[in-house]
């Protein structure tokens, strides 16, 4: 068929060519030459374009080789930081106070999730989520600060392996190890240790040494102050990933360096015992070794459960803590500023003796009130009937206010301000925690600057009994008391004992900070004895009702700081009660510990604060076997 058709067509063509004089019109030689020219022209263009192309490719492959090599590496290589294990916090005897432990969580990175709805649907299949849990996932999606969706917390590797059977449904899911923080005595150590939390923007501008891969940092307390020691150094894994972000292999690995373990000066037994003593009260306690500044107990009551913060506190729990009237988040030791009340009397007494304002036998008559020129209302003594004739020793022991009014009037505010400074009032103790307040040791200059009014004589009297503008922190009282106990060895109160990490033990030599405060020995002796009388002189001692401790004599001073009612109305509610204070050192002859107790609105120092200090001394000498080397 085709052959016939072809032959016929060829015949037709021949007839056509004959008819149209085809041969003349179409000169094959000419056509051939013309075509060759065009073909060669085309070949020339082929070469030109090829050279242009090769030049372009040369630029990419040779000239910019390094740039593209870098980009190719960026494509395939991911650096995954390895978070180091945070060091533990231990007490002086090696009991763990805060520890790190690992939990396994199943998460999915948001960047890997393509479809939210599909993800939730598949996750619900794999984990058998109910409606409520699905809503939770939705909330996690909406929270823009979260980079990943947590599917299951606190799981095990075994469980993950079981769930991995369904990984094809949920390719995004992965098991991650989270290092968590656990506080063994959450409430009792909350204000001391603080807590860790997720790294936030504010941490970058702080003292914290933020390293790559760090997710949690100490936010407050010891966790914050020693963050850089505790945190260790993160390691990393250099991973090769494909375009779907799947890990092909580990190219390089540098393990993380565990953080240092920090031993505190705290004695956990004493800490817990002291904390329990404040049950139902609001207040603070410091127990310290006066010779080296080791703080044995650091109590601010009520505490809070710092584990809640370490796990990531819910807003509900946080609100509850914020709105709690007992202010559990308030660190009373560091930030509570109280009028020292009568606890100032021993220090003022020493100054008066040293400066020759009085001598030890000088007697004033106390009639229950003191009249100051130009003041209508007399300055009252706490004892309405008065203490009759008192010298300094019995004035301290009986806490006679009138005696100290006169002493203040005679000394004047300038002398009091200048000399009380040496006991550390009005200045930070520089304890190793952030947030310390420095109280206020008032002066003429201060009043001029802050109130733009002159100093009134009556205000001097108030300062004389630790009232008025005078305020001090528990730490300052403890610090001042330790000067009495040691006769002028000035130490820095501190919590850091040593750190151990990678088999290297580091201590801090606090002796370098040690100063000597000049205290006249005779004056000190008189005042210390008067503080002994507070406990043991049954006639005048304001705390002589305390049950004595067998074999241990101790000295102390009560204080009851009046709380001024700001709205000048007596409502009689508890919040307007006086602050109860007590400072103490024991044993009397060669002191090993000093104690400062302040109970907010607790009432009288002798009735409320003194028994607590007494119990601590008793517990310390009966139950704490630790021998503190007296240097």
């Amino acid at each position, binding site marked *: 068929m085709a052959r016939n058709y072809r032959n016929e067509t060829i015949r037709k063509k021949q007839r056509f060519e004959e008819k149209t004089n085809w041969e003349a019109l179409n000169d094959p030689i000419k056509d051939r030459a013309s075509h060759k020219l065009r073909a060669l022209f085309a070949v020339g263009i082929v070469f030109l374009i090829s050279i242009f*192309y090769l030049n372009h490719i040369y630029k990419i492959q040779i000239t910019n080789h390094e740039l593209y090599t870098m980009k190719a590496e960026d494509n395939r290589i991911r650096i995954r930081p390895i978070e180091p294990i945070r060091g533990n916090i231990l007490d002086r005897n090696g009991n763990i106070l805060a520890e790190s432990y690992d939990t396994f969580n199943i998460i999915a990175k948001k960047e890997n999730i393509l479809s939210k709805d599909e993800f939730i649907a598949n996750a619900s299949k794999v984990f058998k989520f109910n409606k409520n849990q699905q809503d939770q996932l939705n909330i996690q999606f909406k929270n823009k600060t979260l980079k990943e969706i947590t599917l299951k917390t606190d799981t095990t590797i075994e469980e993950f392996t079981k769930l991995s059977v369904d990984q094809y449904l949920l390719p995004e899911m992965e098991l991650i190890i989270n290092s968590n923080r656990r506080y063994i005595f959450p409430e009792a150590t909350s204000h001391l240790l603080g807590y860790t939390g997720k790294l936030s923007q504010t941490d970058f501008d702080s003292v914290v040494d933020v390293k790559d891969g760090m997710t949690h940092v100490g936010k407050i307390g010891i966790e914050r102050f020693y963050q850089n020691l505790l945190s260790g150094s993160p390691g990393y894994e250099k991973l090769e990933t494909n375009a779907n972000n799947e890990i092909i292999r580990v190219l390089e690995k540098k393990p993380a360096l565990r953080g240092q373990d920090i031993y505190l000066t705290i004695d956990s037994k004493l800490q817990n015992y002291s904390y329990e003593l404040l049950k139902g009260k609001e207040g603070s306690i410091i127990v310290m070794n006066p010779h080296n500044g080791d703080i044995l107990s650091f109590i601010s009551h009520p505490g809070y459960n710092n584990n809640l913060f370490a796990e990531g506190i819910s807003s509900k729990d946080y609100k509850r803590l914020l709105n709690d009237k007992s202010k559990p988040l308030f660190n009373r030791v560091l930030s509570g500023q109280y009028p020292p009340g009568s606890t100032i009397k021993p220090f003022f007494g020493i100054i008066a003796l040293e400066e020759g304002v009085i001598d030890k036998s000088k007697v004033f008559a106390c009639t229950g009130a003191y009249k100051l020129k130009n003041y209508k209302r007399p300055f009252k003594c706490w004892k309405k009937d008065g203490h009759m004739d008192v010298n300094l020793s019995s004035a301290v022991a009986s806490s006679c206010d009138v005696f100290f009014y006169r002493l203040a009037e005679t000394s004047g505010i300038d002398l009091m301000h200048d000399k009380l400074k040496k006991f550390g009032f009005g200045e930070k103790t520089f304890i190793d925690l952030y947030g310390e307040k420095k109280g206020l040791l008032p002066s003429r200059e201060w009043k001029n600057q802050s109130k733009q009014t002159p100093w009134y004589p009556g205000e001097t009297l108030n300062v004389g009994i630790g009232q008025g503008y005078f305020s001090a922190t528990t730490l300052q009282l403890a610090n001042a008391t330790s000067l009495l106990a040691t006769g002028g060895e000035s130490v820095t109160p501190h919590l850091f004992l040593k750190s151990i990490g990678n088999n290297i033990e580091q201590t801090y030599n606090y002796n370098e900070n040690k100063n000597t405060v000049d205290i006249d020995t005779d004056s000190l002796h008189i005042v210390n004895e008067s503080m002994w009388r507070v406990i043991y002189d049954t006639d005048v001692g304001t705390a002589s009702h305390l049950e004595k401790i067998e074999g241990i004599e101790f000295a102390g001073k009560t204080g009851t700081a009046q709380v001024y009612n700001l709205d000048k109305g007596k409502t009689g509610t508890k919040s307007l009660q006086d602050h109860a204070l007590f400072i103490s050192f024991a044993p009397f002859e060669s002191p090993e510990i000093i104690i400062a107790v302040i109970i907010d609105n607790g009432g009288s120092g002798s009735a409320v604060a003194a028994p607590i200090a007494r119990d601590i001394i008793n517990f310390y000498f009966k139950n704490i076997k630790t021998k503190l080397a007296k240097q």
Partner: protein
Amino acid sequence: MRYSDNQFTGLSALFKIDVKLFVIVILIVIIGLTTLFSVSGGDYNLIIKQLIRIAIGMIAMIFLAQIHPDNFRLFSPLLYIFGIILLILTIFFGVGKSADRWLDFYILRFQPSELMKLFVPLMIASFYSDKALPPSLKNLFVASIIIITPAILIAKQPDLGTALLITSSGIIAIFLSGIKLSHIFLGIGLVIGAIPLLWSFMYDYQKSRILSFFSPSQDALGTGYHLAQSKISLGSGGLFGKGYMNGTQSQLDFLPENHTDFIFSAFGEEFGFVGVFILMTLYILVTLRGMSISIKATDNFSRILSGTLILTIFLYVLVNIGMVVGILPIVGAPLPFMSYGGTSMLTVFAALGIIMSVKSHQRLLRK
């Protein structure tokens, strides 16, 4: 009229194929298979599938090489009209993912546009074969209609890339037929004038592709992403490449479409500029051999046809490489003889077959 079969020996005599052309193409095919094996991560199934397609292509090539060019000339109008009908059918009954390019005959499923890549050069060559050359303006106009009709039908699918390629192959055919210089300028003027008109007929995604070509940073994960990854692959290959099976870009799937449209980048990553140079040389050699056949052909039809087909194959090479190195917009064109896929493999081997038919059936020149 005698056929000079006696000048062929061996394989050429048996299959009427051009050994030189065939050997060069086989070299390219081997490079393609090697690269394919690497980017598929050593997938033998893929290689076997590709081998089957190559075999089908070769059978088509050998079959077409047996047919006398006169038959192509005579049947060209029929084939052309057949192709146009299929294109029209595609508009109504076409299937496909994003564009309706396929005709589904249950047993057979193919792209009529692919056929037109051969039929349009055939039709132009056939049209000019009995006209005086260089063609008159009237004949130029007719040729334009021959080209534009299928181009518009294909652009409507929408497959702008193929439409442009077919138009280009038609223009090559007109050029080889001996267009006058003045007519060339007229043509260029018309094309420039048509650009705004063409733009207004384009779909948004087509526009965005072209726009992204001019500013790739604007869509990093769209077509710009493809180009960026392609350049990274090539650039990180350097002079000698990363070594066989060591191309991170293609092995780790950063290079998209790495066994179809972007196989050139995958090859360039592993074999470097040296490899690219050699590959380009092979394609140039294919073209030179084809052009040599065209020059030696004994009638206008054969000359125009073989020249057009070989230049069109080279054009496809240029379009693909130009696209993956950032010279041209990403239109989705495979690399002849290398890309994974059946249709394009069949088309280019068929074109080779027709060229070989010209070679093996050339008449001895009358002195």
